[in-house]
């Protein structure tokens, strides 16, 4: 704690110096300090103790600007770890923007769902517990935006591959592995830094009266690995007794569309994407490599509306594996829904929100209520919960992980 206080003090002194510089040189500094404590409902044990210092430094001169988002995390009593969430240089032209460096690139129109949001990988080490901003990982590369009236074209080149972060096997959020026995893991295969291993993305967008639309495409490495079977032992009358798998990141392509529009009191949105040659895990006794390559489709339809100051949103999401085979672990069709209701009180100083994911087959859910109170413009207190319902499925499998948390955030 003493160490954290020292780091915090140093950061504030640097911030003050930067702010002084900013008065004359177009530099700005903002950020926040935040503390969060969470406990499991089952046994009262802490599953979340977290202190964060998040700084946003920017410097602008003419048509160029620099932005950096250094962060200090202290989690579960560990040493405060520095991280650089984003750091990039911007060039602004008359009809284009160029951004080079480490950056988050967020696409799509869905809430809490990542269908055409194919560029930035996710940090799922704590499942869907962190705020969405912290769920995203930055990618390193160049992005150019070209503008013509209400049309824009975004091109992204990522020479450096950044994978998603999966929950650790010894954590509360350990994933269920798609194997009949516990496998031995070989070293993962990740793409090397080489010109031919670059990732490429493009998005065309139109923003207009009544509706907005985006078309996306990408040729990239899948952010989450497939597990390729490299060795297995089958013992007669016993079955599979040993299995070695290697996590492999693989090339894939995706194309999709996202649209939203107003219809009377509703804002409707739809989003869909096709993913080529997705590696779907299967029974290692059926599939020599442990997976089969299948094309897949994911789409959503949703609507937002307001009633008496309450804002409601609902989405239906469907995942489809095309030409599905019985030996695959995942079902041919998976249906999920999301619901959100939010309202502010006391002149927008108190915000209540409930976001819910519902898996429809089998029925399971994650309910995330959150209450935020702005004690002042700078100081915010919040409390919330994660409630998992069901016993299986994407959310029900964490039924023992129901938790509550409280925290405070000081913005500057």
């Amino acid at each position, binding site marked *: 704690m003493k160490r954290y206080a020292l780091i915090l003090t140093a950061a504030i002194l640097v911030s003050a110096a930067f702010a002084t510089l900013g008065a004359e040189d177009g530099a700005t500094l*903002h*950020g*926040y300090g935040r503390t969060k404590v969470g406990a499991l409902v089952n046994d009262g044990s802490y599953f979340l103790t977290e202190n964060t210092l998040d700084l946003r430094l920017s410097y602008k001169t003419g048509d160029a600007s620099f932005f950096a988002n250094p962060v200090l995390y202290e989690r579960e009593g560990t040493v405060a770890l520095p991280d650089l969430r984003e750091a990039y240089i*911007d060039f*602004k032209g008359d009809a284009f*923007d160029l951004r080079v460096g480490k950056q*988050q690139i*967020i696409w*799509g*129109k869905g809430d809490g769902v990542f269908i055409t949001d194919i560029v930035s990988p996710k940090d799922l080490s704590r499942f869907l517990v962190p*705020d*969405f*901003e912290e769920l*995203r990982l930055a990618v390193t590369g160049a992005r150019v*935006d070209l*503008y013509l*009236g*209400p049309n*824009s074209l975004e091109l992204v080149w990522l020479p450096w591959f950044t994978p998603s972060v999966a929950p650790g096997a010894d954590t509360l959020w350990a994933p269920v592995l798609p194997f009949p026995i516990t496998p031995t893991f070989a070293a993962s295969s990740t793409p090397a830094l080489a010109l031919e291993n670059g990732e490429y993305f493009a998005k065309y*967008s139109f*923003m207009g*009266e*009544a509706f*907005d639309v985006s078309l996306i495409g990408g040729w990239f490495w899948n952010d989450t690995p497939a597990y390729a079977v490299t060795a297995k032992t089958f013992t007669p009358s016993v079955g599979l007794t040993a299995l070695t798998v290697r996590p492999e990141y693989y090339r894939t392509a995706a194309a999709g569309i996202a649209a*939203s*529009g*107003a219809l*009377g*009191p*509703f*804002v409707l*949105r739809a989003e869909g994407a096709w993913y080529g040659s997705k590696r779907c895990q299967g029974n290692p006794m059926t599939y020599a490599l442990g997976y089969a390559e299948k094309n897949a489709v994911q789409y959503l339809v949703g609507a*937002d*509306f*307001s009633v008496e*100051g309450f*804002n409601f949103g609902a989405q239906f999401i469907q995942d489809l594996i095309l030409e599905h085979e019985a030996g695959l672990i995942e079902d041919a069709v998976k249906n999920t829904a999301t619901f959100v209701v939010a309202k*502010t009180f006391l*002149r*927008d*100083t108190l915000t209540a929100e409930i976001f819910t994911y519902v898996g429809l087959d089998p029925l399971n859910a994650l309910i995330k209520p959150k209450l935020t109170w*702005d004690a*002042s*413009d*700078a100081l*915010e207190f919040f409390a919330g919960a994660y409630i998992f319902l069901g016993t299986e499925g994407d959310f029900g499998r964490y039924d023992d992980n129901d938790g509550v948390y409280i925290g405070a*955030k000081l*913005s*500057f």
Partner: protein
Amino acid sequence: MNVFAKRTIATLAAALISVTAMAAEPSGADIMQAVYERPQGKDLSGLLTMTLVDARGKERVRSIKQISGNFAAGDKKLMVFQSPADVRGTSFMNWSYDAEGKNDDQWIYLPALKRVKRISSEGRGDSFMGSDFTYDDLGARHPSEDTHKTTGTESVDGESCWVVESVPKDTKNLYSRTVTWVSKEKNVGLKRDYYDKRGTLLKTLQIAKIESLSSVWVIRQTEMKNVQKNTSTRMEFSDVVIDSGIAEDAFSERAMTRGL
């Protein structure tokens, strides 16, 4: 409708009002139409400082960069929050249309989500960022949405004003009626009272400062008081620039995400 057409209509309306006044009081609808058609300039930019005062007198200040423009199909407005720190970078864009009955298009950008989201414009009666203004209060309400009648002539801060009572045609509107004191000289509402659905006075709007810039009357300072909750919101518009040539393309997703 372009600014020339608006000015022409406003001039004609003013002339019509003057001529009619010789014979009789202008109708409430004519007065509110003249207010609506008053020359606004082709575009406008500035810094809006909004001070929210609660019932105990505690103040919260929001600073917002704002640009607006009048184009072929209607008006466009973009607001980017500069402070406080927790909302810095949040932006809100509204496109409203001259076509009668056509709903506004609205978007919001939240820096934490890094995504521009289209939102429903049905919440026109909702509070604007926790203030005493609703989104509807801040917009140019089309006169055809209300029925108007002139109830007399009164003086506000030494200026002779028509008093116009307006009743919303939509019975679901937040207000049962409003009463506006319109300057005969400037075609600007200098004061407005808002009555709730029970017919009780809810809020009062007072223009504290108005200036002529480039032959356009610009409201520089205004205050809305909620007399039932004893809260108020002051709005001050500074660094105002009119007709700087803001292009229609400036009202875009690019400006929302990258700032003004």
